[in-house]
């Protein structure tokens, strides 16, 4: 069935196929006339069977037969015997059609439909399936149907598991069998069936099983996919956990109306400028969750009612699940020193996308200090421009003892109690790591390296709360660098992984993070102004990651990297200043995550590749449903449809209309001609500076 080269048809084959087409056309014409006239005589029904035996893909004919069956079943003289004979006929037709084409969707579906009538013996189906699956053991239609049959006849998962085992022993290059195995095991775990209570024991046996396949033939991919599933089962804790928050537990946050603050007692890490009077609280979970609202998360503070808080998911898609959620407190404009307590998951309702309940209620608190807004200074900041140039930065001294970084760590340790109960996960991963090091000592294989990198990464992530460092990050980075050279076709994938590991490494310790923290110093006044700027420039990043460690960042320099996408950046709710200068962003739609950053005032996207390509690949590559949402929103906006320039730049309109930018740099992109700039000014009336030029 598989791996057979296609041969060019011989002349006699062509003749045969055209004769067949001729016959088929004649049959079809006659069939349609029966169908349209609702003729269900024996002769007419037999004609449709003939048609289906030649062409099982004829959906209309299958539907016709369904109608005919209904017709017969509704006849007044219908008795159990005649029903059985009608349905048996259907099964026979399907079987003949399947002989013609194993992979006919219509035929398989018709069979299910007939069986769902409940008059046919289901035992027979298993025998038929055995025959089909022997002929083509990997046919996913047959496997799908098998799941249906097994369920209908209440065949135990254990029996089916044994069947997958037999099939795998016959030939282990069988994605369908491995896949069915994972489906069955998931069901058995969920049921807590006998012998499957101890997930760890079963998983260790499965690892042992898959090793046989991987070591026997490391080039065969079907085994690797199953291994990936096992790894996922090992690493992923069932119930979601809170990974970090902003503000962190025990932190003091100073809310200022002015960007400059001299001689403040507060660490520049914890001072937040807000001109909107809104104070964000950000929760970052270890996996996407839904159901975050004012009843599952309660915020106790002196100045806002919990019920008024609206929790918003932050994800690229508009789904109601996300890893990161945000709510905004309204800060009174008076002097304030208040403690805020946030309790997460004390009442049920936070559920992971995999259906598991958040089961580790946690609580964190922080203090908010508000400096009254100074109207005058906000006027000053209008004229001020921020320029993220090298000479404007000063290395941030390590004088601060209690930084945001520490408090986010505390939060993770608080959740560590689940991990201590899961020593087997460590042991399993350690064993796998040993196993794959051995494999790589035997053969140089790409997928082996990738798996080792994944294993090491997972091990580091799991041990981080205890070790407080990523022990293997250097090795993982090396493996991905190797893979980029070994397997150029998947370069971008490895590069992305490499970027994320690099970011995790940078954010893993206070020391390494502080090396990237700088203070902005205005070149004119040379006053130390504004919050800490995290500079992750020149790291050749192609993707952003480690967001749970970066929730506190207000100024971010990502210039001189290789970013094509900034997916996930929406988690960084405090961002007010962002430089993406000299990256590889290719389209305006790649900026989609920024729409959710309400504090963003200064954006530098100069020297990217926006407009280089007429086709926007982001829209096809990314999971963002942007392409669907764009049109509908535009239609509602009538002010726009009248303006030709805006219609022609509807993407720019869609992206930029929600921005509250003061300052934008877009020079060095193909798209950024004078005409486009004038459109931008129109979309963003609040913009004060464009490409370094003050606007009127």
């Amino acid at each position, binding site marked *: 069935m598989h791996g057979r080269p296609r041969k060019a048809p011989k002349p006699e084959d062509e003749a045969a196929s055209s004769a067949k087409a001729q016959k088929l056309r004649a049959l079809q014409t006659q069939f349609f006339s029966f169908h349209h006239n609702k003729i269900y005589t024996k002769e007419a029904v037999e004609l449709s069977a003939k048609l289906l035996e030649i062409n099982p893909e004829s959906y209309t004919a299958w539907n016709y037969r369904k109608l005919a069956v209904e017709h017969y079943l509704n006849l007044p003289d219908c008795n159990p015997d005649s029903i059985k004979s009608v349905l048996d006929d259907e099964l026979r037709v399907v079987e003949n059609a399947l002989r013609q084409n194993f992979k006919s969707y219509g035929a398989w579906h018709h069979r299910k439909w007939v069986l769902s009538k409940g008059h046919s013996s289901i035992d027979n189906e298993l025998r038929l399936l055995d025959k089909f699956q022997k002929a083509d053991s990997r046919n996913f239609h047959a496997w799908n149907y098998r799941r249906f049959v097994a369920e209908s006849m209440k065949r135990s998962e254990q029996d089916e598991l044994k069947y997958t085992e037999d099939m795998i*022993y*016959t*030939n*282990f290059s069988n994605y369908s069998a491995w896949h069915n195995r994972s489906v069955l095991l998931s069901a058995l775990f969920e049921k807590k069936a006998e012998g499957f209570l101890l997930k760890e024991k079963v998983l260790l046996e499965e690892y042992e099983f898959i*090793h*046989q*396949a991987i*070591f*026997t*033939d*490391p080039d065969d991919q079907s085994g690797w996919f199953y291994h990936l599933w096992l790894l996922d089962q090992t690493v992923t804790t069932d119930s979601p956990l809170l990974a970090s928050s902003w503000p962190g537990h025990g932190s003091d946050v100073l809310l200022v109306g002015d960007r400059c603050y001299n001689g403040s007692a507060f660490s520049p890490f914890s001072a937040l400028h807000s001109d909107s009077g809104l104070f964000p609280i950000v929760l970052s979970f270890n996996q996407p969750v839904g159901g975050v609202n004012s009843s599952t998360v309660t915020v106790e503070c002196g100045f806002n009612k919990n019920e008024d808080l609206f929790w918003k998911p932050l994800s690229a898609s508009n789904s109601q699940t996300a890893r990161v959620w945000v709510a905004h407190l309204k800060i009174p404009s008076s002097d304030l020193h208040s403690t805020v307590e946030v309790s997460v998951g004390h009442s049920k309702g936070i559920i992971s996308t995999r259906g598991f309940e958040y089961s580790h209620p946690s609580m964190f608190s922080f203090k908010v200090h508000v400096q009254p807004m100074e109207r005058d200074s906000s006027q000053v900041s209008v004229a001020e421009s921020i320029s993220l140039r090298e000479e404007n930065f000063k290395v941030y001294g390590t004088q601060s003892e209690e930084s945001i970084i520490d408090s986010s760590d505390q939060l993770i340790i608080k959740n560590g109690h689940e991990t201590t109960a899961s020593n087997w996960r460590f042991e399993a991963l350690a064993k796998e790591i040993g*196993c794959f090091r*051995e*494999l790589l000592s*035997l*053969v140089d294989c790409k997928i082996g390296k990738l798996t080792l990198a994944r294993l090491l990464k997972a091990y580091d992530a799991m041990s981080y709360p205890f070790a407080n460092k990523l022990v293997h990050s250097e090795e993982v980075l090396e493996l991905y660098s190797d893979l980029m050279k070994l397997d150029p076709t998947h370069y971008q994938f490895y590069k992305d992984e490499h970027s994320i590991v690099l970011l995790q490494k940078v954010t893993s310790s206070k020391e390494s993070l502080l090396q990237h923290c700088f203070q902005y110093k205005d070149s004119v006044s040379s006053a130390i102004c504004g919050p800490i700027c995290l500079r992750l420039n020149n790291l050749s990043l192609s993707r952003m990651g480690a967001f749970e460690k970066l929730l506190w960042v207000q100024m971010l320099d990502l210039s001189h990297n290789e970013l094509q996408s900034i997916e996930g950046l929406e988690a960084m709710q405090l961002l007010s200043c962002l430089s993406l200068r000299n990256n590889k962003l290719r389209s305006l739609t790649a900026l989609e995550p920024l729409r959710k950053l309400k504090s963003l005032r200064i954006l530098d996207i100069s020297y990217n590749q926006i407009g280089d390509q007429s086709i926007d690949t982001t829209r096809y590559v990314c999971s963002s449903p942007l392409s669907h949402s764009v049109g509908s929103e535009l239609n509602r906006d009538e002010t726009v449809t009248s303006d030709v320039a805006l219609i022609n730049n509807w993407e720019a309109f869609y992206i930029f209309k929600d921005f509250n930018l003061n300052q934008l740099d877009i020079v060095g992109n193909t798209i950024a001609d004078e005409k486009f700039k004038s459109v931008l000014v129109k979309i963003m009336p609040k913009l004060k500076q464009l490409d370094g030029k003050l606007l009127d």
Partner: protein
Amino acid sequence: MDDVPPYPPIDPTTFDLIVIGTGLPESIIAAAASSASKSVLHLDPNPFYGSHFSSLPLADLPSFLSSHSSSPSPPRSPSSDDPNEFSLLEFATRPLYSSIDFSTFSPNLLDQHSRRFNLDVAGPRVFFCADKSIELLLRTGTNQYMEFKSVDATFVGDNKGNLWSVPDSRAAIFKDKSLGLVEKNKLMRFFKLVQGHLAGEQDVKISEEDLQSPFVDFLNKMGLPPKIKSFILYAIAMADYDQEDTGVCRDLLKTKDGIDQLALYNASIGRFQNASGAFLYPIYGQGELSQAFCRRAAVKGCLYVLRMPVTALLVDKDTGCYKGVRLASGQDIFSQKLILDPTFKVTLPLGSSPPLPLKEKLPFFSLKDDKGKIARGICITKASLKPDISNFLVVYPPRSLFPEQVTSIRLLQIASNLAVCLPGMFVLYISALCNDDDQGKKLIHAVMNMLLTVPLDSESNAAVQSETAEIGCAVQDETSESSSGGPSDSGEEKPTLLWSALYSQELTLGQVDFICSTPMPDGKLNYNDLIDTTFKIFQEIYPEEEFFPETSLENPEGDGDASPET
């Protein structure tokens, strides 16, 4: 065989070719010659087809073996000159079997049903699904006369009584429980290397230097551990002699030959959809093969006369050239060519040398150097050696049973589903190459003692017991060890022996004849070498003729479907 019915006269009396004996090589030649439109007379003194390749009922086997074991019968009368123009050279029989030893532990049961057994005289033997014999069967349409079943597995035995399945394919390596992960990886990579080499992939080509070096050296170079080397050499490449001891090894495999063997094995697995392993075995026994070629020959006009002994060779008085044979009936039949089975030898008149023209044409193929003997054993049991599997091969690599064992011992278990024995019974064929009868007995007994329970209350059991005693301390130790704690004894009883036949068979042809003689069954597991030799004999007698021309495919009786019926 003594009270043969009155011999019918044969008509016509002149043929292109006379073939005497219906063993496999003779039958193939008869069929090939008939296909080449030669008129052929095929005679056999026996009342059955197959000669030394036949499958016989239990009661007939002893008499057949012993009829070929006596010392050469002295010429009945000095060769006398006929009144006409021919000289008569009398045939003598050559002893081919020795140390024949039968033991019956269940006389009633077996005697009553003797005819329900089809015991191979030249066992153990199987077909590789892709070997030359299967190709020949398919090419000639002879497969239509036979049905096959798959031999399900190959095991390697050890001196503890364990039978380890041979990881001979990707699926088998995956499934194997005895190999470690690293070993699995090494073995599969070796298989892939061989496959790549055979497929002509440039980057995995095995160098010419390696191809000419001993296979065992190449396996060492590939870093294969001893266990895997043993699997490859003896259970896949089917080497006979200890490849790592050049002192005793008479068939040192070159890498090239080893790879060819692997290729054959690999091509055999999965060739037929309903054959799970690499081997096939014919229903009703191996004797069917010779018979099938005889039927093939008969279809093409070959004349068959069984129960027809021949007594003498007729040679031209003046030239000494072959003219024909004299049958036991006294009739003289003439032909241009003659093929004899290896039982016959021609007694030259004392003091005379072979007629000159024939001396020059000494057939090269019969000039086999001394290859010693092969010890064979046939055992009947009521239980399978391994539960849940009935037809399988077991190989005991050299020195796996005792230190002095220098050759592989092979065992084939065939169950009643192949119609070779009573339902519920199993026939075991054992063979090993040896230098002499004693050594051969020791080898066969070592396996029997390892795997079977030999009852003590038998009339001829003493022989087995005394042989056992001779095997020496090494084996005694091993067996006692295995009986005390070996895995095979922990759960199940060893099958009990019901009947056994042990004999040694000559491999050498002994004397170079001046008439074309076909070879005896060899020590191999399949028929490849025999078919090669047979082809050479055919070329020798008919250098102008094609060996089964392709047109024979158009034979309406051959449907070309070779799939074994299971």
